[in-house]
């Protein structure tokens, strides 16, 4: 493998050692998958959402199978801020990959509470702000769809993180009329990067039982089915802002990842594909290196410039 290939990614003041991360909600807090892949080899680990209070999440069933994808309505099931710090962070700190804490809540105060507290803890590389979770009525959806609200929230949070140097990554929802307006609002509010995309709203009905498969009714659609939507969003958003865009949605292999890089992504995340083949992120990392070596591409950050139009 060519050692001169530069795989590093810059998110604000943070340097990721490589561009391949695992998506929030699909990798827990990094413990469960450690028997199946080398977590330390990842560029970044995005945790399951952390909220101020413990949350049980939604009723079961919380999962449904869909054509080339899945629905989830986990909700923001998580042990809460205190328990996260006490039980999850110690192990996360030992990881050699960047730990990005996904932060969620019902109102700006929730996000502020989590960030202010975590700013006092070592071992966190940055934050991913989930303003786009379609599952919690009071929270995510409403916050993430109005540019003014997004800009204000991002500013409130970036005011509290800039000094510490941890980048604030705002995660965008595709369930909006104009994703670029939200992207620009987050940039204006001081986001260091954007991640793009969260799940689409979807529903599956069990025809025999005559009711939605998910206890909640609807949930978030992810997996290969949504990849074209994610690539289109990254293409648009990366042209609307000048901060880095982290691409995700349906990435299953090196070619899928390359689609995102060519569309304009600076880094990527693998979510649902972990469920199908847990080794996917590291196979992609190897595949990207091979592609770059074969095509004499020196830096991963050169990829977006290679798209012909």
């Amino acid at each position: 493998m060519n050692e001169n290939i530069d795989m590093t990614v810059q998110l604000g003041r943070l340097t990721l050692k490589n561009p391949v991360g695992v998506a929030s909600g699909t990798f827990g807090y990094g413990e469960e998958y450690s028997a199946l892949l080398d977590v330390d080899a990842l560029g970044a680990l995005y945790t399951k959402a952390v909220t101020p209070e413990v949350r049980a999440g939604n009723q079961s069933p919380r999962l449904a199978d869909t054509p080339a994808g899945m629905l989830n309505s986990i909700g923001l099931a998580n042990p809460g801020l205190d328990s996260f710090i006490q039980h999850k962070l110690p192990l996360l700190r030992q990881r050699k990959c960047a730990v990005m804490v996904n932060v969620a809540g019902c109102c700006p105060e929730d996000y502020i509470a989590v960030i202010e507290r975590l700013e006092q803890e070592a071992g966190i590389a940055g934050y991913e702000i989930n303003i786009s979770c379609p599952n919690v009525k009071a929270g995510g959806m409403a916050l993430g769809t109005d540019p003014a609200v997004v800009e204000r929230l991002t500013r409130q949070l970036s005011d509290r993180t800039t000094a510490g140097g941890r980048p604030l990554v705002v995660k965008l929802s595709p369930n909006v009329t104009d994703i670029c307006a939200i992207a620009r609002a987050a940039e204006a509010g001081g986001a260091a990067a954007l991640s793009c995309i969260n799940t689409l709203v979807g529903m599956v009905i069990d025809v025999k039982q005559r009711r939605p498969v998910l206890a909640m009714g609807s949930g978030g659609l992810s997996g290969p089915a949504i990849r074209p939507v994610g690539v289109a969003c990254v293409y648009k958003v990366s042209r609307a802002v000048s901060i880095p865009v982290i691409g995700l949605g349906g990435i299953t292999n090196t070619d899928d990842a390359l689609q995102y890089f060519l569309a304009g992504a600076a880094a990527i995340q693998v979510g649902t594909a972990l469920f199908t083949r847990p080794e996917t992120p590291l196979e992609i990392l190897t595949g990207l290196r091979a592609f770059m070596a074969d095509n004499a591409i020196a830096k991963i950050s050169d990829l977006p410039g290679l798209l012909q139009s």
Partner: protein
Amino acid sequence: MKRFDSTIVSIETVAADYYQLSFHWDAAAGQPAPGAFLTLLAGSGYDPALRRPFAFSAYDPATAIASIIFQKRGRGTAWLAERRIGDPLDVLGPLGSGFTLPPAGVRPVLIAGGIGLGPMKYLAETLYAAAAAGRGEAPLLVLGYRTAAFVPHCSLPEATVICTDDGSQGFQGTVSAYLQQLHDPLPLKYYACGPAPMMRAIDKLAALHSPSWEAATEQWMACGVGACMGCVLPFRDGSSKRCCADGPVFAGQLLDWDRI
């Protein structure tokens, strides 16, 4: 626990829409215990994207061959049912916790309905072998079916009781009816796996005959390893636990069967 590429050793029909599938096990993955499960890719690409979970119905350490018994229900199991000997199989396991063996002097009563057969067959054979070696009591395996036509023709322990709703084979009535009239000099411990209505009935009976019992549960799964929080089951104390990583075997009396 490991994901590996296996090869199918045999696949055969054991009853209408029921199949027994055997394949090479990767010893490096660790030995599967009765009650543990694995997940299979049930298609050739990413449709379906979600792996399908199945309980082990047998594992032979001598040959390193593992087996499952599965029912054809939807698109994933339909795909599996079309596999042939020698075809590749994408396997991830072993996953989840297994059954705990009963204390000495307690009769293990293993109750299965429908797709619950696999894990109970494996547990029964393990308990027989243990009893033969002087460890613990011989188990009693009780299987329930609607009618004789659905009774699987795979090898079953000798002391197996078949219950059919219509009496066309064995005991006439449900497994619960059989258990209600069962007399055994020993104290009993129930182990059960089957459809929710059966499990609810067992739970009621267990309160009388087996205050502590073990249930092999099911829930839709995505990761199968405890990471996604997708497969939680409700407990009587209001808490919830992950079927895949905290189970799939739980103390039956703790689960909130009315909400399952």
